[in-house]
């Protein structure tokens, strides 16, 4: 076995670039009506997204040239930083409320969502922790429990904003990491069982919760309430058919579908470009996952493998939930579609994570 520093994985880079280009186009198309209406500028969202992307790409280039092993050392500091931000954002006057959640921190356009950063911070720290304490991972009390406490501390802080979507993605990503790191399957079953019992208790204590959860199964039972967004999303996806209504041809973006440029951008994509376009994007995400995990499998060190799989897991879980919501498979949560949805914090952070992933691909080993 030889070890080389190789060029970045071109397939991974290529799929990422494709997604970014499609994302820009869709942000433009989906955002015209709202941009025109709210800002008297149909290019409003495109322009801003372009700026975010430039910043994100700069971060990506820098990070793809930064040896990922650097993060092993810095991860505890970064995690503490993220925790501090998560606490700060909850303080009125520092954290800003947008869309009913106190999730933003900063000034005006230069504001960030600490929970987005926590996702990456947690991935780095867990990759570091699980690499260092690998032998303990098979033990529930000594290995798993401290990690679980850490995860739930972060989850709890995020839920205080509240931001269930981001919290869920972060927790899901952590479990992917624990699974990849070799935690016992039995422990997962125990955790799963405990989770199910907890969920059942919540439902028994307040049966309306069950209705809220299951309303997505039949959104037409409450078309103006809980079912509204799903119905409007399906009204976009369904008429798209095989080829779609053509670029710019969406009708649902005209105020029928809330947030067409962020959480429901995939619905507009499916409406305008049909199964061909939407399916292509799904395949691109599949390719991204494949190349990312391939890097994780071939990188020589445990930290690199866990970091890569954590980043891939985070991105893919978001895709899964977002597309699931848009097509009516999941209840509405409020998760953006990675690389496509409009949003500064999300995009720059994802591109930064992409840069780290690209750097890891440089360290893949080849077997003869």
């Amino acid at each position, binding site marked *: 076995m030889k070890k080389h520093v190789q060029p970045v994985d071109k397939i991974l880079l290529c799929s990422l670039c494709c997604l970014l280009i499609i994302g820009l186009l869709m942000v433009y198309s989906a955002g015209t009506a709202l941009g025109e209406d709210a800002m008297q500028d149909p290019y409003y969202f495109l322009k801003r997204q372009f700026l975010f992307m430039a910043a994100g790409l700069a971060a990506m280039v820098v990070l793809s040239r930064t040896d990922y092993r650097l993060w092993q050392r810095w991860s505890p500091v970064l995690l503490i930083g993220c925790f501090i931000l998560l606490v700060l954002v909850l303080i009125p006057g520092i954290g800003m409320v947008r869309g009913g959640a106190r999730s933003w921190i900063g000034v005006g356009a230069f504001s960030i969502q600490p929970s987005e950063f926590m996702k990456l911070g947690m991935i780095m720290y867990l990759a570091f922790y699980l690499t260092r304490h690998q032998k303990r991972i098979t033990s529930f009390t000594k290995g798993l429990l401290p990690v679980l406490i850490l995860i739930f501390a972060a989850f709890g802080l995020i839920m205080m904003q509240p931001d269930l979507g981001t919290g869920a993605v972060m927790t899901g990503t952590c479990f992917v990491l624990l699974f*990849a790191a070799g935690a016992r399957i039995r422990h997962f079953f125990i955790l799963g069982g405990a989770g199910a019992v907890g969920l059942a208790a919540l439902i028994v204590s307040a049966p309306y919760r069950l209705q809220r959860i299951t309303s997505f199964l039949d959104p037409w039972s409450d078309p103006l309430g809980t079912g509204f967004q799903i119905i409007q999303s399906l009204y976009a996806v369904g008429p798209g058919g095989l080829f779609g209504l053509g670029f710019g041809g969406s009708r649902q973006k005209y105020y*029928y579908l809330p947030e067409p440029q962020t959480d429901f951008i995939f619905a507009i994509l499916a409406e305008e470009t049909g199964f061909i376009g939407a399916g292509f994007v799904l395949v691109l995400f599949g390719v991204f996952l494949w190349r990312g995990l391939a890097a994780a499998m071939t990188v020589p060190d445990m930290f690199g493998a866990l970091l890569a799989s954590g980043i891939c897991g985070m991105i893919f879980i978001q895709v899964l939930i977002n597309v699931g919501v848009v097509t009516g498979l999941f209840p509405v949560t409020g998760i953006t579609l990675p690389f496509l949805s409009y949003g500064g914090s999300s995009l720059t952070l994802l591109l930064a994570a992409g840069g780290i992933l690209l750097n890891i691909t440089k360290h893949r080993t080849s077997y003869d």
Partner: protein
Amino acid sequence: MRVSFVTVRKRLFFILAAGAAAVVILLLRLAFVQFSMGERLTELAQDSWSRDVPFEAERGDILDRDKEVLAGNVSAPSVLAAPQQIEEPEQAAARLAEVLGAPEDKVHDWLTENQSLVRLSPEGRKINKEKASKVRSLGIEGIYIAEDSRRHYPKGSYLSHVLGFAGIDNQGLTGLEKYYDEQLSGERGNVSFFSDAKGQKLENMAEVYEKPEPGKDLMLTIDADVQSIIERELDAAEALYQPDGALAIAMDPDSGEILGMSSRPDFNPENFRDVPPEVYNQNKPVWSQYEPGSTFKIITLAAALEENMVDLENDHFNDPGYIEVSGTKLHCWKKGGHGEQTYLEVVQNSCNPGFVAMGEKLGKDILFDYIDQFGFGKETGIDLQGEGTGILFDPENVGPLELATTSFGQGVSVTPIQQVTAVAAAVNGGTLYRPFIGKKWIDPESGKVISSRTPKAKEKVISEETSKKVRYALEHVVAKGTGRGAFVDGWRIGGKTGTAQKAVDGKYLENNHIVSFIGFAPADDPEIVVYTAIDNPKDTLQFGGVVAAPIVGTIISDSLSVMGVEKRTNQVEKDKQWDDETLVETPDVTGKSLKQLHQAYYPFQIEKEGEGNIVAAQSPQPGEKIKEGGVIRLYLDDKSTSSD
């Protein structure tokens, strides 16, 4: 560490496989939503995008048998507003309010309503063309003019009960408008424009025009000329007699087609609210039911002839002025009776005891069987709302007395349409038709006949031979008997008078009768049957032969002329010609009550003066000769001055 790293790789491979499976699942779900659910979702989505500007279907016209329009439409557009598209509601409201004549703040409320489409009702509903074009010329974005129409009845109150009327939404509310509402109303269309969730027009999607399906035109069996004659005669009768009500029906006896139908009081369908609801809700010719009186004797006659119970010329009947049935004396209307008569004379004289004899010969089973076959006691099935059935004696409870009174038309209750239908069967050769008014459905655009109704024969009630005898007898009634008021030279009119007693709370009213006449012509081959009833005519002897017979005579003769029927030459000559100077002796009526006068039959016109029920004096004096049909003036008092 190495061993463990293998585990990690295995786990990663598992994650990759799960991820690939997830992508496949999402693709399948996407395909399911876009292909399998796609069509249904597209429909639902289109509904949610489109805003319909309704395009009312033109209601079908109602025409007479010669396509004269009896009910049509006039253009009356409606104004609609799409508030989201109106840029300056204040200014728009001010301008619109001025044109529509509506309060400005009300218009402003409409234009700012949180609705995708608002009807400006009532001020902007069914306005006239001039107003509509003014609204259009305002050029306000978001204000739409929807084509609409208002029902119009060009002949006013003409045929009003039969036509009925349609409401503001062009929905049939009474009469034929209601009975045939479905076919007349057609299907509404619309112009759909696609809009965003805020109600603004989506420019990149074309408007879709869904054509309204116009209602079909309904051609009636009504002959506008015959109807005009009927309306004219009822107006004249109303002016002359100030009756409580009046009605007339004309029917083609060979098909059951209604040629004309009218009643008083009437109303203008466009202002139906001006009259009480019972006026427009009750179409008396089919709705009202009352004791028919002597017109019903035609049924008894037809049955007796069909059963060969009597020979008109050779069988005789002696009328002493009454007939005793089960110990009760049933009096003839003529005091002292008609004496020895042939049965033809029994019919001519409308002699009650003679008809009781006929009924007795038939027996209750046969007579009631005929009454049933002639269609009494049940709806005729005419295509009009609110038809009555009439009331007959329950055959179980019919004793000799009930049989006797039924024979001359008392104690039964029938509708005018039943009588017309039954008499038509008696004179047309014996076939009972189901009467009808709706003749054809016509495509309003091509003018082609879509469907036409053929006459429906329900029963063969009597033979052609019997029918001929009935016509013969009834022609004699008009030429020589009680019906001579209906005689018009050359038309061979046959018919029968009727004077129906009105029963209220089980008692007959005094001096309050429905006088009627049913006639047909020509007697050799009847083309028309006409029935007229006048309810409680004032200042006249309430007798069918005096009041109703001349009206029917006029309706029949005028109608046959406009229908193009030839006059006949071989008529049964009238006993005394109309313009004869033949004089008759004036009877002595002093001391008689109006009731007695009424029960008698005098071929004179009566003029009453004074208050009271008893004739105190008369002019001319008894014994003086005056012209038949001339005027006798009676001075009334409550006390009799003669010692009669």
